């Protein structure tokens, strides 16, 4: 038996103790991030999501290939870079996930409860929704973010999102802005993007959804917000709610002009 050169194995553990000084810590984290770039398991979700998109599902046994996520029925390429946006048929602003739920209900005939039963994956059970999100977002790779606020409801969502961003509450008095309102801050060793600064906002938004190595899951943008609010000590963010879409609108709009780069891979 001939054995080929096994060049690099897989991404294994995180850095061990922490027995090195700050500069080398930052450098080691960067090296770790670089090492992760090749072989992003997000691709596994993309493949599964494409299959789910094309598969006849739900009581109506139809695929999502007639689903209009903003650029017309079935158009996936570049659609994510323009979301959230106002949709005439629902008379509301939708993000990708709330729009996918809409299509599952209106096209595939699922109940809203069924469509949203498992939106975030956990150990041993990945979520179909996160796979669909991975597929759709992967089709906007390299496309410039171009989120409009021309419609009054889009403008309203943006302003609502901005208000939520600065809204302090809960037992810890936290707002999004507490952690994401100043340049060059970090929690423990994790760098925090300042989402009020265009460059940081662009880099942050265009790298979600992402495969989180520490969780072994592909995480959607709704998950990102859900988990931020959990740590903010707020109640549970309602999946696809107007408020969640509004905050997404504020953050997506601030990323305009940057090339979309997800699904990415993060620690």
């Amino acid at each position, binding site marked *: 038996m001939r054995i080929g050169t096994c060049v690099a194995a897989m991404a294994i553990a995180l850095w061990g103790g922490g027995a090195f000084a700050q500069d080398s810590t930052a450098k080691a984290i960067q090296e770790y991030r670089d090492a992760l770039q090749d072989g992003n398991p997000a691709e596994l979700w993309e493949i599964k999501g494409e299959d789910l998109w094309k598969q006849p599902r739900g009581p109506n046994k139809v695929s999502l290939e007639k689903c209009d996520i903003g650029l017309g029925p079935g158009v996936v390429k570049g659609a994510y870079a323009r979301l959230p946006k106002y949709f005439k048929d629902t008379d509301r602003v939708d993000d990708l996930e709330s729009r996918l739920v809409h299509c599952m209900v209106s096209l595939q005939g699922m109940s809203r409860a069924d469509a949203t039963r498992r939106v975030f994956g956990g150990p041993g059970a990945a979520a179909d929704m996160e796979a669909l999100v991975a597929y759709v977002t992967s089709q906007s790779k390299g496309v410039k973010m171009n989120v409009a606020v021309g419609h009054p409801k889009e403008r309203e969502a943006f302003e609502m999102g901005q208000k939520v961003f*600065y809204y302090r*509450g809960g037992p*810890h008095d936290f707002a999004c802005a507490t952690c994401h309102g100043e340049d060059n801050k970090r929690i423990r060793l994790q760098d925090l993007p300042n989402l009020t600064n265009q460059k940081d906002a662009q880099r942050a938004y265009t790298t979600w959804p992402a495969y989180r190595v520490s969780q072994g899951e592909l995480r959607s943008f709704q998950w990102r917000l859900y988990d931020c609010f959990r740590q903010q000590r*707020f*109640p549970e*963010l*309602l999946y696809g709610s107007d*408020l969640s879409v509004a905050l997404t609108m504020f953050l997506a709009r601030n990323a305009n002009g940057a090339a979309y780069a997800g699904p990415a891979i993060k620690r």
Partner: protein
Amino acid sequence: MKKILIPAFMALMVFASFGAQAQTRSPVGAQVGDIEAMRELMRGFKPNGQAGLSRLVQDEAQQFCSDPGWTRDKARISAIEKQQLADVKFPADGKFLGNWQAGERVAQSGVGKQFSDNPGQPSGANCYACHQLTPQELSFGTIGPSLRNYGKTRGNTEAIQRYTYAKIYNSRAYSVCSNMPRFGHSDILTEQQIKDVVALLLDPESPVNK
């Protein structure tokens, strides 16, 4: 009884919070708009375990600091700071210094008050998330200032002990829109835990001062 009280309390808070704005803007429109925004906010969440919707109701300090332009209103800054300082409950035994080793454990722990946390377990203060403290811990955040040598540079007088206790109990008493949670005011830490963190900062034996 509790069920009736909470919405009534919420409505009161909404009017109290937004009342001040209504005076400076077009009276009726602004007030209605802001209450609508608050309702909209509540519609975006659902209660989960210990994290109920009442957590979204702001007190005066939270409401004041949610406006990015808060720095302009000097009169209200000092009024709220005064009110927050009056809220500090000092230890009945008059002692501020606990055990620094226990304080280090509180400083390291980030659990508490999240809907994913067990409400039966004590909360941590998660000091290291934002501050540098002991030289041994390299994994510290930078949202707050470094507290390395906190006691060494300030001394360990009773006045400093008292100030440090109050700052942890209610950070807003000294800086109205501080990013730091009000650990005593909001029942995050117990009196003993606060004393232990004070010791971590001030005890000459604490690694913070070595």
